[in-house]
C-alpha cells in the first residue's frame, strides 16, 4: 500500500525539480546593446506577481503529480500542466520584453535567460515522461507533445515575441535565414537520402555474405569515430587536389571547401546506422520463414520483395531515423567549411559573441530535429506490417 503510494515517476520528478529550480537564475536580461552584458532579472523581478505565481503553481502541481504516479489521468494532467507552463512562459516573456523596452534606447535588447531555458527544458522532460504513460491514445500523445510548440508558432506569427532579442536578430536577416534554412535542408536531405540508399545496399551485402560483413563494418565503424571536423579536413585536401587537376569539376561545386566535402562527410556519417540496422534487419529474419518461402517455390525476387523487405523494413527505417536526426545536428558543422546551413548563424554568433545570433541557428536546428524525428516515427508506424506489432487478442 505504502509502496504504491510513494511509487513515483522519477523522470517527471527530475523535470519538475529542474522547473522549480528555474526560479533561481535570471529569466530575462535587459542589455543596453546586443553584445554588452546586461542586468539579469529573476522570475518575480521580470513579471508581476500573478504571472510568477501561475508558473510556480504549475510547477508545484507537476511536482506533486509526479510523486503520485498513477493513472492515465495523472499523466494527462502532467502533460497539460507542462504545456501550460510553456505557453504562459512565452506569453510573459513577450509581454515583459515590450514593457522593458518601452522608452529605452533603440539599441537595447531583452534576451532570454537561463531560468527560461531551464523551465522549457524541465517542461519537455515532464512532457516526455507523460507521453510514455499515454501509449495507447495517439491523439492525447500528440496533443501533449506538440501543443506547446504549436502555441509558440502562433505567438511567433502574430509578432507577440517580436521584442525579444533573438527575433530582433531575425528581423533584417529574413532572407538570409530562409536561404540558410533551405541550404540546411538540402545538405541534410540529400546526404541522408544518399546515405540511406548506399547504407541499405551495403547492409544487405553484409547480411548476405559473411566475407563482406567484416570489412563493411570495419570501415563504417572507423568513420563514425573520426570527429566530424577532422573528417571535413581530411576531405578538403583530396577534393581540392581533384578540382585543381580537373577544373571542370568546379562547375559542379566540387572544391576543397563547400558543398561537396560537406555532403560527402554527411553521407559517411549517416551510413553506419543504416548499414547496421539493415544488417540486423536481414539477419534477424526467422530462417524458418525464409526456408518455408523457398520450399514453397518462391523465387529469390519474391522472397526479397514479399518476405525480407516488409519484415526488415521497420528496423531499416529505424536506422534511417537515427541517421536523419543525427544529420540535422551534424549539418550545423558544415558551415565551417563554407557549405552554409543554419550553422552559419551559430558560427557568426560565436565570432561576434552574440548569444542571440547563436540561438537563431541553434533553435531551428533543434526544432528541425524534433520534426524529423516525429515524421520518421510516423513513417515507421505506417511501415510496420500488421501482425508484427499486434499481440494476442
Amino acid at each position: 500500500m505504502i509502496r504504491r503510494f510513494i511509487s513515483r515517476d522519477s523522470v517527471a520528478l527530475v523535470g519538475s525539480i529542474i522547473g522549480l529550480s528555474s526560479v533561481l537564475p535570471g529569466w530575462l536580461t535587459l542589455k543596453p546593446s546586443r553584445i554588452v552584458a546586461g542586468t539579469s532579472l529573476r522570475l518575480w523581478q521580470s513579471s508581476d506577481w500573478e504571472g510568477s505565481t501561475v508558473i510556480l503553481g504549475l510547477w508545484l502541481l507537476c511536482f506533486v503529480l509526479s510523486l503520485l504516479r498513477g493513472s492515465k489521468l495523472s499523466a494527462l494532467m502532467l502533460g497539460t500542466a507542462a504545456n501550460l507552463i510553456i505557453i504562459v512562459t512565452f506569453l510573459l516573456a513577450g509581454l515583459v520584453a515590450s514593457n522593458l523596452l518601452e522608452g529605452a534606447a533603440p539599441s537595447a535588447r531583452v534576451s532570454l535567460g537561463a531560468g527560461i531555458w531551464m523551465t522549457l527544458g524541465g517542461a519537455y522532460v515532464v512532457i516526455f515522461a507523460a507521453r510514455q504513460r499515454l501509449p495507447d491514445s495517439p491523439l492525447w500523445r500528440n496533443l501533449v507533445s506538440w501543443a506547446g510548440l504549436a502555441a509558440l508558432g502562433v505567438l511567433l506569427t502574430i509578432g507577440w515575441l517580436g521584442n525579444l532579442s533573438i527575433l530582433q536578430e531575425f528581423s533584417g536577416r529574413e532572407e538570409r535565414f530562409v536561404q540558410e534554412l533551405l541550404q540546411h535542408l538540402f545538405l541534410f536531405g540529400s546526404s541522408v537520402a544518399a546515405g540511406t540508399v548506399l547504407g541499405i545496399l551495403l547492409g544487405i551485402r553484409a547480411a548476405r555474405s559473411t566475407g563482406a560483413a567484416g570489412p563493411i563494418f570495419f570501415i563504417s565503424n572507423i568513420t563514425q569515430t573520426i570527429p566530424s571536423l577532422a573528417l571535413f579536413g581530411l576531405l578538403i585536401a583530396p577534393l581540392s587536389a581533384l578540382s585543381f587537376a580537373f577544373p571542370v569539376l568546379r562547375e559542379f561545386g566540387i572544391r576543397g571547401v563547400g558543398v561537396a566535402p560537406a555532403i560527402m562527410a554527411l553521407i559517411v556519417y549517416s551510413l553506419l546506422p543504416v548499414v547496421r540496422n539493415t544488417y540486423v534487419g536481414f539477419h534477424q529474419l526467422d530462417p524458418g520463414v525464409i526456408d518455408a518461402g523457398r520450399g514453397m517455390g518462391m523465387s529469390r525476387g519474391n522472397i526479397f520483395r514479399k518476405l525480407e523487405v516488409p519484415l526488415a523494413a521497420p528496423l531499416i527505417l529505424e536506422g534511417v531515423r537515427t541517421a536523419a536526426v543525427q544529420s540535422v545536428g551534424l549539418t550545423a558543422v558544415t558551415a565551417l567549411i563554407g557549405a552554409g546551413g543554419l550553422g552559419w548563424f551559430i558560427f557568426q554568433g560565436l565570432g561576434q559573441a552574440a548569444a542571440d545570433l547563436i540561438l537563431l541557428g541553434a533553435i531551428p536546428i533543434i526544432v528541425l530535429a524534433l520534426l524529423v524525428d516525429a515524421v520518421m516515427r510516423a513513417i515507421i508506424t505506417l511501415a510496420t506490417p500488421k501482425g508484427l506489432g499486434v499481440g494476442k487478442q
Partner: protein
Amino acid sequence: MIRLEQVTRYYGNTIAVNELSLEVSQGEVCVLIGPSGCGKTTTLRMVNRLIEPTAGHIFINGQDNSQIKPERLRQSIGYAIQSVGLFPHMTVAANIATVPELLHWEKSRIASRIEELLILVGLNPAEYARKYPNQLSGGEAQRVGVARALAADPPILLMDEPFGAVDPLTRERLQSQFARIQQKLKKTTILVTHDLDEAIRLADRIAIMASGKLVQYDTPETILSRPANKFVHDFVGTDRALKRLSRISIQSVIKPSPAIVMDVSIEEAVSVIGSRPSVWVVADDGRFIGWVDMTSLSAATSVREAIVPGDVDEIAITASATLREALSRMLGQGLRNIPVVDEKKHFIGEVTLSDVEAVTAETAETGA
C-alpha cells in the same frame, strides 16, 4: 511416386547422405526416422532441390528432378516444417494463398480453397482466416502450416517433423487428424520424425537411417517383428510387442455383446447377465449409456436405478481404434472389457482383455 537412386550428399568432408536408394509409391506415407544428424532432413530437402545431391538422382513420377526448374518443382510439392515458418506479416488466409498466388490462380478460386482447407484442418474459416500467426497457438499454427502445404493440391508432400514442436496431447490430435486427411487425399508423402510411435502410427513404410545410410525400409509391422539388425532392434526398443499393437485394428476382436435398454425389468436384466460379470445399457436409439452388474442390481429397485453411468469418451472406443488404444483404455479404467461405439456413439459390441491378450501372444510368436 518418388524414387531416390544412389543419392549422396557431402558437406565438405562429412558425408550427410550416403548412396541412399529409396522408393515411395503413389499415395504412400514413407516415414524417415533415425538418430539426430543421420541425414533425414538432408534427404528430404534434396527431393525438392532445396539441397542438391553431390551424386545420384531423384525421380519424381519418373522424371529426374534436376531437369525441373526448382521453383516449379517446389510449387508442385507441399512442404511443411517443424518451425512452421508462417509469414508473420500475413494473415492465415494470405499464408495459405502463397502457392496458389504463385500459380496465378483466380481470386475467387483462392478464396474458396482457403475456406476448404481451413475446414479440412479443423479451423473455423470465419474465425481464423483473418488472424495473424502471432495470434495462434502452437497447434493451430502447425495446422495452418499443413493447410498451406496442401494449398495447391500438390500430389507430393514433404514434412520435416511437422508435429515436433507441440505438447504430446496436441501432437496426438494432429497426428490423428493427419491420418484422417491422408486417408482422404492419398498424397505421396515423405515425413521426417524423431518419434517412433508417430512413425508406426502414420507410416505405410518406415525408413530407418543411420549415418547417412538406409538401414531398413519396410512396413512398420515388419520393422517391429523382424528388425534387420541389432541397430534396428535396439532402435525400436524392448517394447516392440506393445508398439506393434498400435498397427492392429480392433476390428478383428470386436465381439457382439448383449445390451439392454433402461426399461427392462430386473429379472430380465439378471437373465441377460447370466454368467457374465455385467451387461451394457443403451438408450432406445442405441446410444451407449453405461452398464449394470449383479452388485448394482441387488441394491436397486429398478434397472434404471442400477445403472453405473459411463462417459462414452472415457470408457468406450471406436471401431477404428487400435489394439494398443484398447489395451491402454482397459488398463486405465480398470475394466476387463470395454464397449465399442460408432461415430454417433451408438453401441456396436465389445472388446475383452483376454481377446487382446490372445492376439498379442500370436503376434509375439510370429515376430520372434
